[in-house]
């Protein structure tokens, strides 16, 4: 057991607070998705990782170290594929259209690889070489966040629409399908961006540290706290004060009645899943300068996200805030005090809370 000085405690509290902010960005989406749709999204941390990579790529594109061409080609290919599918399936039926497109793809793949050394699949799924960026500014970071939010949000929407919607409240199916997506996103990002550990550089003025009485406070952590507070306030305002929030709450409380008064609950579910996913993506971009971005990060942080929502209670915003703070402080102080048992120090209090109140501190369940 290590003894801590006052200065250590203050520094640790600061880093715990920033860590808690990041956890909040991750866990609030998880909690939101569960609260509205009763889906345990095991792919949530994969959204976080994916967001980080997308942000990194956007960064590279802004600074000209990666080309945007592969992405434009990808977009064009998928659009072409979509229209080809639509035309063909109308003309020849879905089964024949699928067979035709698949055989066309296989033939093209074989021919192109015979004529010149090109893998046709890269039109659909490009491989991107990323570089480490040194010069950064605040605008690029905001841009990266925006791109990641859009891409991951749309992706989440598609996943909900085409897969999760079919399962209703079948927990087992949801878990297995979302973990399937976690595998695909993880391995897909390994394929696309490679296995190197990338670090975001924090933009000026957040790459500095404030020194007070021999204690250093990195300003980037302040930025993380700021983002989390902003997102938290936006969520609170969105849920409690806007029409969309009212529709959402109505859907949670009584889906049948909501449908009865003309609310399209399908669209609500889709938007909620997208919002949850994009919150994770924001966390991924912001956390990129903190954790770095590397394959396997997702399964490393997933248990923390679950610890947060289990302690705070699923589906409660207050719960997510409190849970993030508890886990953030536990993790940082636990690691400082008993490094070998820090995981235990984190999950043991959680077990106690569960034994007393299985739905978490603020859970409604």
């Amino acid at each position, binding site marked *: 057991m290590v003894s801590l000085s006052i200065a250590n405690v203050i520094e640790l509290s600061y880093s715990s607070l920033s860590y808690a902010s990041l956890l909040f960005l991750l866990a609030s989406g998880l909690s939101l998705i569960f609260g509205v749709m009763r889906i345990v999204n095991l792919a949530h941390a994969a959204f976080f990782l994916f967001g980080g990579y997308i942000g990194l790529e956007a960064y590279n594109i802004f600074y000209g170290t990666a080309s945007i061409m592969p992405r434009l080609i990808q977009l064009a290919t998928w659009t072409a594929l979509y229209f080809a599918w639509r035309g063909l399936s109308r003309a020849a039926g879905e089964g024949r259209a699928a067979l035709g497109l698949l055989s066309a793809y296989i033939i093209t793949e074989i021919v192109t690889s015979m004529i010149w050394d090109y893998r046709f699949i890269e039109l659909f799924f490009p491989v991107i070489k990323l570089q480490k960026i040194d010069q950064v500014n605040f605008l690029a970071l905001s841009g990266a966040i925006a791109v990641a939010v859009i891409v991951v949000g749309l992706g989440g929407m598609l996943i909900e629409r085409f897969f999760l919607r079919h399962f209703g409240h079948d927990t087992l199916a949801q878990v297995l399908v979302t*973990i399937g997506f976690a*595998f695909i996103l*993880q391995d897909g990002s390994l394929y696309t961006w490679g296995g190197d550990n990338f670090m975001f550089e924090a933009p000026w003025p957040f790459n500095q540290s404030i020194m007070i009485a021999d204690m250093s406070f990195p300003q980037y952590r302040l930025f993380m706290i700021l983002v989390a507070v902003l997102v938290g306030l936006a969520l609170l305002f969105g849920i409690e004060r806007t029409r969309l929030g009212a529709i959402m709450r109505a859907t949670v409380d009584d889906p049948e009645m909501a449908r009865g008064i003309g609310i399209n609950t399908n669209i609500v579910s889709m938007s909620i899943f997208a919002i949850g996913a994009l919150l994770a993506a924001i966390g991924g971009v912001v956390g990129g300068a903190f954790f770095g971005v590397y394959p396997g990060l997702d399964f490393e942080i997933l*248990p923390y996200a679950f610890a947060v*929502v289990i302690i705070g209670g699923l589906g409660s915003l207050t719960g997510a805030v409190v849970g993030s703070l508890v886990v953030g402080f536990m993790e940082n102080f636990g690691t400082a005090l008993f490094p070998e048992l820090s995981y235990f120090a984190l999950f043991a209090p959680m077990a106690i809370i569960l*034994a007393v109140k299985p739905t978490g501190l603020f859970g409604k369940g």
Partner: protein
Amino acid sequence: MLGTAIERRRIMIVLGVFAALALITPFLDLFLQSLVTEILVFGILAMSLDILLGYTGLASLGHAAYFGVASYASAIIMTKKSWVVTYAMFTWTDSAGLGLFYLFFIGVLVAIAFSAFFGYLAIRAKDVYFLMITLSLAMVVWGLAYRWSAVTEGDNGIIVPGRPSLFGFSLEEGLPFFYFTLAIFLLCLGVLYLITQSPFGRTLVGIREREERMEMLGYNIWLHKYLAFIIAGTFSGVAGVLWTLYNLFISPPDVELITSAEALFMVALGGPATLVGPVIGAAIIRSLQQFVSIYVERWPLILGSIYIITIMLSRLYGVDGILGIANKFRRSFAAENNPKD
């Protein structure tokens, strides 16, 4: 009931398959022998989870924990020379040819202890909460394996020098170890089968179908679930000890979420509440992994797609796994032959 005759025929088929396996395996090459042994080990894991998921209706996402603690416990008592008592006990029993019994005794005991404690915390919760609690408790085990390097060697894992002998009969070669594994597997299958056929097992199914009604009939729901949890943990521990003996190496990835999810998927793929189905699921997943990862580097991508496609198909067509398909065919066949039923 027409159950008994069909049931007897099913038992004969299963026994026949395993007898055939025992006869064929000596003629397979070493790679396939090892694969079959691995399938049997994971088959026990999947069967044990089936008690919980299939029969009791509790989806546990932390089943690798009990597998892992037993696996670690047996690896630690075989290698940790600084733990004088356990190591002395091991060398002493090993010299008498009873080392395996000692390993299984300690390993399974540890698994029972963990499942008794974790089950106590988890059983109160329902559905999703149960799933998340088992998940996070399993993460505690993973965290201990990963960070408590004084005991578990952390990321490096524990390398076990060799297998203890059984009454002086060496299991170092692949084939004797296969027969040993097969014997343990059949023992587990038999015991689990008897449990599921017993009044206790029937009560579990009743709880899965109608919990309120069973409660009204005076059954102690909590106790039944708790016992099912411990039974599942126990047999998962047996699989864990076998895994250490098979692999001669244990490291944190064997305990993590992916292993738990894989066990869950094996049950879902083969057919829940069938005992044999999960073994089929284990066989499919493990063989695919061994064969596909030779040719393709993107195994997780394929595994993820298999998860999604299987679940989508099974939910869209309303069948429970591979045995579910067989049952559906048989039922429609029987309906055609005897329209009165």
